[in-house]
């Protein structure tokens, strides 16, 4: 059984082109049925995310599979083959299997180690399975991809540290406060970062979340979206004393939170730690407050520094993951080979079992004077001779270290011993 992949990704094609080939805007049934209509494809799936569009297909001929998969992509999206060919990459068999394992393990992602891709591969597989029966080889391949992705995630630190500024800030907060469920948070400003951070904080069940903004309506909107309380910006100072964590992201060209304000909070007897995150440029929190006891301030550069270090760590971990994947590809093929070889050995033995039975019947009918014991001895001798004769071809079939792949060996043996032919046909030409 051959397997191929053909597709485009963030590494080979610009977003305008990825959009053109995007499958997610089409009904699953429409494109999956088109794929399965291709003559060479016995099983397949379509993986379509914002960073990649890939078609995986399994069948008997890799050349036919590649042609059909490419034709499917071009025809379904109605794109000109000459215009698009240089964006495509295609891989076959071992390389295709390795590619699927790398994609599922998030080694081929734009942000290495991002967790969504595995879910997307699973979804693509379940969609395909709901449409058409999947053959055992392809089933085995995809299940293996899931288990490899899991192994990579547990045995390497590829997804351990956050690579987004907002999540890094929250991870730092957890290193200060532990569980965030007793934390009171003050969000100052608006924007995407504030929204991402608010969402994560609410998910972690913070005790209270306040939104302060120059435009009160914005505070109200955010408060409604994330179940918090809106406050006016001038009220911020009086709420500062109650806050454990303060997230600031505004476009104000001056320090909104000065050292005096924080010292005023401390002078009111606040002794528990306070964590300030200032992602504004120019900065909105006086950097000197970090010198104060139990006050921690991280600005955008501090957080980016951590993110860069985490990305570097993920890249280092990705190298370990590549070794795991190489080993798993080899193991996958060993498993497949065993699957292909075992039935062949059984076929071979069955075929000569039939020969033995027929020979015994012939002897019995020709030499009617033979006793049961003599017949038994004869049967044992013929059976032993057959076993000895078959021993070498079986060893050849199992033979590790043989330069031919086991699939090639199996094919050779199938032809030599004419395993696709019934014994009766052979008999005609025999004694």
């Amino acid at each position, binding site marked *: 059984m051959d397997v191929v992949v053909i597709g485009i990704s963030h590494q080979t094609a610009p977003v305008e082109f990825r959009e053109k080939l995007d499958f997610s805007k089409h009904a699953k049934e429409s494109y999956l049925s088109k794929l399965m209509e291709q003559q060479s494809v016995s099983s397949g799936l379509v993986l379509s995310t914002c960073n990649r569009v890939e078609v995986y297909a399994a069948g008997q001929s890799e050349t036919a599979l590649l042609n059909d998969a490419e034709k499917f992509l071009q025809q379904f999206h109605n794109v000109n083959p000459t215009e698009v060919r240089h964006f495509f990459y295609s891989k076959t068999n071992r390389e295709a299997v390795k590619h699927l394992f790398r994609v599922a393990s998030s080694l081929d992602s734009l942000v290495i180690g991002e967790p969504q891709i595995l879910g997307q591969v699973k979804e693509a597989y379940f969609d395909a399975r709901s449409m058409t029966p999947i053959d055992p080889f392809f089933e085995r391949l995809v299940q293996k991809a899931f288990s490899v992705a899991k192994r990579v995630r547990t045995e390497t630190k590829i997804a351990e540290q956050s690579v987004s500024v907002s999540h890094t800030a929250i991870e730092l907060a957890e290193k200060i406060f*532990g569980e965030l469920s007793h934390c009171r948070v003050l969000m100052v400003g608006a924007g995407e970062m504030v929204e991402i951070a608010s969402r994560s904080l609410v998910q972690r069940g913070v005790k209270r979340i306040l939104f302060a903004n120059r435009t009160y309506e914005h505070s109200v909107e955010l408060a409604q979206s994330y179940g918090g309380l809106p406050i006016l910006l001038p009220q911020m100072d009086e709420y500062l004393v109650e806050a454990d964590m303060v997230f600031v992201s505004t476009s104000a060209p001056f320090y909104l939170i000065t050292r005096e304000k924080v010292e005023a909070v401390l002078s009111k007897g606040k002794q528990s730690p306070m964590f300030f995150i200032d992602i504004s440029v120019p900065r909105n929190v006086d950097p000197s407050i970090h010198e104060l006891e139990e006050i*921690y301030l991280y600005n955008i550069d501090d957080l980016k520094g951590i993110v860069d270090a985490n990305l570097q760590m993920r890249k280092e971990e990705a190298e370990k993951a590549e070794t795991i994947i190489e080993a798993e590809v080899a193991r996958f093929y060993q498993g497949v080979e065993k699957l292909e070889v075992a039935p062949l050995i059984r076929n071979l033995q069955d075929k000569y079992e039939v020969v033995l039975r027929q020979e015994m019947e012939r002897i019995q009918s020709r030499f009617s004077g033979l006793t049961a014991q003599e017949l038994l001895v004869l049967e044992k001798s013929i059976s032993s001779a057959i076993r000895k004769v078959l021993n070498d071809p079986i060893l050849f079939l199992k033979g590790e270290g043989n330069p031919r792949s086991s699939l090639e060996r199996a094919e050779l043996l199938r032809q030599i011993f004419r395993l696709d032919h019934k014994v009766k046909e052979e008999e005609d030409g025999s004694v």
Partner: protein
Amino acid sequence: MTGTLENFLFPFHLGVLLIGFACFGFASLAALVYLIQKHELKSKHLGKLFLLLPSLETLDRLAVRSLIIGTVCLTAGVATGLYLAHLVWPRDWTKDPKVLFSFATWLWFLLLLGVRYKAGWRGRKFFVLIFIGFLFLVLTFLVSLWRWM
């Protein structure tokens, strides 16, 4: 002295003091780790150590809980110790340095709980007090050993 050792309260006295000692040791260790983790956060150079160590809040909670359990054990240990000392030296037990050291250590830890719960002390200054308390305790222990020998 023989009377003290034979008294059934002696093993109890020894047991609670040992538990108390372990608790204060653990509180000091948690305080030390807190200061290391705090240093990591302040320096903004977040290495593998930072990832391995627990949060400041967890360390603070561990230290304070150990301190409370340790103080309860020390209270029981000091009380039984005073009673046993009274049996052996009815008049001049107050002059025994071991007893005086134990008493001072106990008072120090009571004071610690006071500053935590009345004045709300936390962080570096509070943990420095724990270290001093632990030093007192080690001294008391050494004095006890010396007296015994």
